[in-house]
């Protein structure tokens, strides 16, 4: 259908070809995302959360500000990484060129790619040291920014508003449960975790906090969020050291473990 909308993609030294991408799309992606890229493939009725609708050109995992198009690299990373806790697998086994071709083809589904440029990526400055003060300030921000209203006081995804959440297509959606693992939809590294709440997750209830958090605040929050997760990183060690002598935590300020 979209042959008129020629698109390319540029990732590193590779250039994507939409015509090539179409062939791969029809082999690997069409079952869920559909022939027209609108997320209504034959598997879609059985899948939660629903496959992305590329015709809306609204994307969750971006380096760019809320409301703007992602970069080609963002789409490439999403295809490569896959979306944990969803039916979208990692397509890392495909050749790099194949993944870039797929990105080029995905961009043919919405006219937004012809009229708009991707947003300017939000800069992630070098990480600050993990200290007790940083983790504790992060905990304060978790309470003050009201992250717990959806993600729950201990980050279990069970806050007071959690059960009411819907995505932009009115499908029910769950807030992320930090105790479920170390990876989330858009992140494995600390820098990616930083980016998630600064950019927001478009098309979902998760807003952007870039206007309300300084880079130092954002790193403190990252350090605290890591303590809510199961693995024993440097953040958790710092946190536990503090917990030894700490008073019992109260509602809305996080629980620790």
């Amino acid at each position, binding site marked *: 259908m979209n042959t008129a909308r020629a698109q390319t993609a540029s990732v590193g030294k590779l250039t994507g070809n939409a015509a090539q991408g179409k062939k791969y799309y029809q082999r690997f992606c069409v079952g869920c995302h559909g022939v027209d890229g609108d997320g209504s493939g034959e598997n879609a009725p059985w899948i939660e959360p629903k496959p992305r609708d590329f015709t*809306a050109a609204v994307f969750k995992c971006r380096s760019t500000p809320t409301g703007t198009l992602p970069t080609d690299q963002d789409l490439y990373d999403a295809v490569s990484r896959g979306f944990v806790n969803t039916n979208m697998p990692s397509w890392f086994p495909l050749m790099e060129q194949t993944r870039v071709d797929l990105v080029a083809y995905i961009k043919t589904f919405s006219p937004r790619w012809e009229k708009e440029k991707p947003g300017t990526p939000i800069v992630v400055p070098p990480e600050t040291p993990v200290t007790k003060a940083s983790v504790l300030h992060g905990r304060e921000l978790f309470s*003050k*920014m009201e992250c717990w209203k959806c993600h729950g006081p201990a980050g279990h995804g069970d806050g*007071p508003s959690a059960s009411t959440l819907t995505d932009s297509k009115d499908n029910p959606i769950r807030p992320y449960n930090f105790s479920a693992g170390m990876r989330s939809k858009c992140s494995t590294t600390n820098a990616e975790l930083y980016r998630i709440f600064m950019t*927001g997750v478009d098309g979902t*209830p998760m*807003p952007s906090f870039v206007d*309300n958090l300084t880079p130092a605040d954002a790193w403190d929050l990252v350090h605290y969020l890591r303590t809510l997760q199961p693995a024993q990183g440097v953040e958790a060690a710092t946190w536990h050291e503090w917990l030894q002598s700490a008073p019992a935590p109260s509602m809305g300020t996080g629980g620790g473990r």
Partner: protein
Amino acid sequence: MRTNYLWSLTVLGLGAASMAALSAPAPAAGSVSGKVTFTGTPPKMKPIDMAKEPSCASQHETPAMTESVVTGPGNSLQYVVVFVSAGDTPAPAPTQVVRYDQKGCNYLPHVLALQTGQPLEIYNDDQTSHNIHPLAKANPEWNKSQPPGTPPIRATYDKPEFIAVKCNVHPWMHGYFAVIGSEHYAVTGNDGAFSLKGLPPGKYTITAWHERFGTLTQEVTIAGGESAPVNFVFKAVPY
């Protein structure tokens, strides 16, 4: 020489244009005004339980009501956007800022009309965090958090669209941005009345939009300085 020649032409042209403007006053502008009513049974609005947000619940002596269908005396219908949808000459975006408030975990006003390109400022007057999530389709969809005491969020919309606005933290919060491509628009008050002023002679399509009952249109011709009566009657459905 050529440059000079062009210059003099331009100056002459400007002079002539301003002379014309002075000597022949613009034809008297007309207006369209009327009332929006409904027939049938509208749904009853329900009280909102804000118990989960005590700082908002305490701002309402009686519970706040949902506002998707608000009616007034004589079957009048509030929050209907009436605007010129065809026949208008495009007007530049006004620089006047329109204000949208989050107060008592409600949107004020429930339906905000503004022109394409017009600056919009969104305020959080509450002691709780909101996220402002306008579910735009034709325009970019963004979603921003706004803790208490933070500066207003500024935005503009370039394409005409009725955009549902919600706050994911407080699921009862619903509102609309009516982004209109014309400078002639109005939102009905509780009496259902509206008036579109300053319409030069011509043929216009007038559209009325209600978030639950859809759109109605009427054609109207303005000959001079008269006020053309236009009334809209929506068919209400109870659910």
